[in-house]
């Protein structure tokens, strides 16, 4: 059932060792797990040993230069600092908090969920779920890609959201991954399984924001996150992902989504933080008549790099996909978008649309965009496009001529550009927070 897009494993003898990656691997595999989890981790570690970190010579990483990551020696931390993270008011009873990738039970709260729904960390799963989780965890396609495998190799725990057959979860489920401390690597991991006919809203947030407001803004750390989402037959998942890491952080995140027949998946991915941020969003269709909606917003300034690589791999007929990705790039920041849609022969009657729109706020800001449709089916509707624009003087003047001052006019226009994505987010408090963030941009 899985579709492989990662490079085929290369024989050990042909590869020069990546010493930096080996060092990182040694650190993340140091603490061992029990039973099947350790087996999964070890086979992932074997993959990592055969791989190297990508460089800008790799097409997929052409604009995302990891050399500054290599300059930092990251460590794994297992202690839990005493913090109070920000939690969504809509989800304060359905929230799991992980600090540096480690589950923080005293900060988490899970209550009042319908029968058949499990929101738990891996280590504390209720009886009977362990075997079921094993069928899914680290099984999504693309699991041998280097950062994904590194995460799996070091996986000591994970957030697990399991929604049973035909269960509708009314309240959103929130997963918060907080980063604190200097120079460490965290491996946030999340597994969501929405069984057939179920319906759920998931909010996944990466942040260094805590209520303590300690001046830890400028810390260097590395979040290497992996989320697997299984949307079973006729199930519906609304997924919101907010990356709001610290200004000096590195963030490499993978979202792998397996979509079964007649399932509906929508993702709102917002990237605001980190000096280096990469989101790999991969959708694998395993049955016909799926619906996929991907909305993305990257908002970066200073010297930030914000890179989104998405892939929708269709392999069955009658699917609909809609993608809108927007980048707002200020100062000397660099936005990257690469969106692939694969429409092979079996995926007849596909209706796929993709649009990437970019707003550059300064003359030094840069965007590289590559919408990429690969179509071999002959009876499909597919469209893609990309635009790059700046704030128009005439637009600002029009607003000024109605009494709105130049600065407010600029903000109004930037807000309007971002609002198209932000308004898709189903959580009102998040919409408000993001709107405020945009106003201060």
């Amino acid at each position, binding site marked *: 059932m899985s579709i492989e897009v990662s490079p085929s494993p290369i024989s050990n003898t042909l590869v020069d060792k990546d010493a930096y990656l080996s060092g990182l691997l040694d650190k993340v595999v140091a603490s061992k797990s029990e039973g099947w989890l350790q087996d999964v981790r070890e086979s992932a570690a074997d993959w990592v040993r055969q791989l190297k970190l990508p460089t800008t010579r790799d097409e997929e990483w052409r604009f995302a230069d990891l050399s500054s990551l290599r300059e930092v020696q990251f460590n794994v931390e297992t202690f839990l600092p005493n913090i109070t993270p920000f939690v969504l008011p809509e989800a304060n009873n359905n929230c799991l908090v992980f600090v540096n990738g480690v589950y923080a039970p005293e900060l988490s709260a899970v209550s009042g969920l319908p029968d058949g729904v499990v929101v738990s960390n891996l280590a504390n799963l209720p009886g009977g779920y362990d075997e079921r989780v094993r069928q899914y965890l680290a099984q999504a396609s693309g699991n041998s890609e280097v950062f994904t495998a590194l995460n799996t190799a070091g996986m000591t725990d994970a957030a697990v959201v399991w929604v049973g057959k035909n269960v509708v979860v009314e309240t959103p489920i929130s997963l918060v991954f907080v980063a604190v401390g200097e120079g460490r690597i965290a491996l946030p991991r999340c597994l969501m399984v929405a069984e057939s006919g179920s319906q759920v809203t998931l909010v996944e947030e990466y942040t260094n924001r805590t209520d303590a407001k300690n001046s830890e803004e400028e810390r260097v750390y590395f979040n290497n996150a992996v989320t697997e989402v299984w949307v079973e037959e006729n199930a519906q998942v609304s997924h919101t992902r907010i990356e709001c890491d610290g200004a000096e952080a590195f963030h490499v995140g993978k979202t792998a989504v397996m979509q079964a027949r007649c399932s509906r998946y929508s993702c709102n991915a917002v990237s605001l933080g980190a000096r280096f941020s990469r989101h790999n969003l991969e959708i694998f269709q395993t049955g016909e008549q799926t619906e996929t909606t991907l909305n993305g917003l990257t908002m970066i300034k200073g010297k930030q790099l914000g890179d989104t690589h998405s892939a929708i791999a269709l392999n069955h007929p009658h699917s609909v996909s809609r993608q809108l990705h927007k980048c707002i790039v200020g100062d000397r920041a660099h936005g990257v978008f690469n969106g692939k849609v694969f429409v092979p022969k079996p995926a007849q009657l596909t209706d796929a649309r993709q649009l990437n729109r970019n707003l550059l706020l300064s003359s030094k800001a840069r965007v590289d965009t590559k919408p990429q449709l690969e179509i071999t089916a002959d009876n499909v509707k597919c469209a893609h496009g990309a635009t790059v624009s700046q704030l128009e*003087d005439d637009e600002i003047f029009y607003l*000024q*001529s*109605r*009494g*709105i001052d*130049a600065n407010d006019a600029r903000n109004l*226009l930037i807000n*309007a550009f971002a609002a198209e994505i932000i308004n898709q987010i189903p959580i009102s408090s998040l919409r408000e927070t993001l709107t405020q963030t945009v106003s201060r941009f």
Partner: protein
Amino acid sequence: MIIENSEVVLSVRDLTANVNGTPILKGVNIEVKSGEVHAIMGPNGSGKSTFSKVLAGHPAYEVTGGEVIFQGQNLLEMEPEERARSGVFLAFQYPLEIPGVSNLDFLRVAYNSRRKAQGLEEIDAFDFDDLIEEKLDVVKMNPAFLNRSLNEGFSGGEKKRNEILQMALLEPKLAILDETDSGLDIDALKIVANGVNQLANPENATIMITHYQRLLNYIVPDYVHVMAQGQILMCGGKDLALELEARGYDWVLEGTEVGV
């Protein structure tokens, strides 16, 4: 209407302006008093639209000389938003489409910025809804347009109506209508003209900039000015427009060449 001894709203003396280094306005003079409706006519490229943009403060137009006094204040020293707040309104020839900004929100923000400048309290969304309801009637606009993005996907006539709606809301002291009639069919023109006529009163003044005499059948001016080559070459009453329609603009240009 021409009123004896009414206050001078706008006084322009020897105004010159450049666009990208090219002189466009070459000494414009005009005086507009409260209650009056002025029409500025002229061939394409005569500087009519430049004049209107200079009055509104467009940054692409560089004023190189002369003065513009609006209600005793030096207009040229004011930012575009300050001009708007103190009562200058430009109805655009090509109103801009701004996706993502709701027409209603935009109108409220604009209205409140004018209120603030007048030392009045800002009004909330609820009260504003009542107010705008009343103003919609001036241009017979469908309330559905309020919830759409500003001008996005509006037809030419709808955009011009939306301009007059903004004018009705902001109640300017001086309204400058830049080619408000261009591209309108006769029904839309009547609605827009009717809106402008409703808003004109002894306390405000209007400058209409137009290429066509047709508009002046519906909004009757007190004075007609003919602009060409960056200057106002001729002034007269409303009959001048008819003469222009009959004889064309060349007649005015020829007249100046021989020093008339």
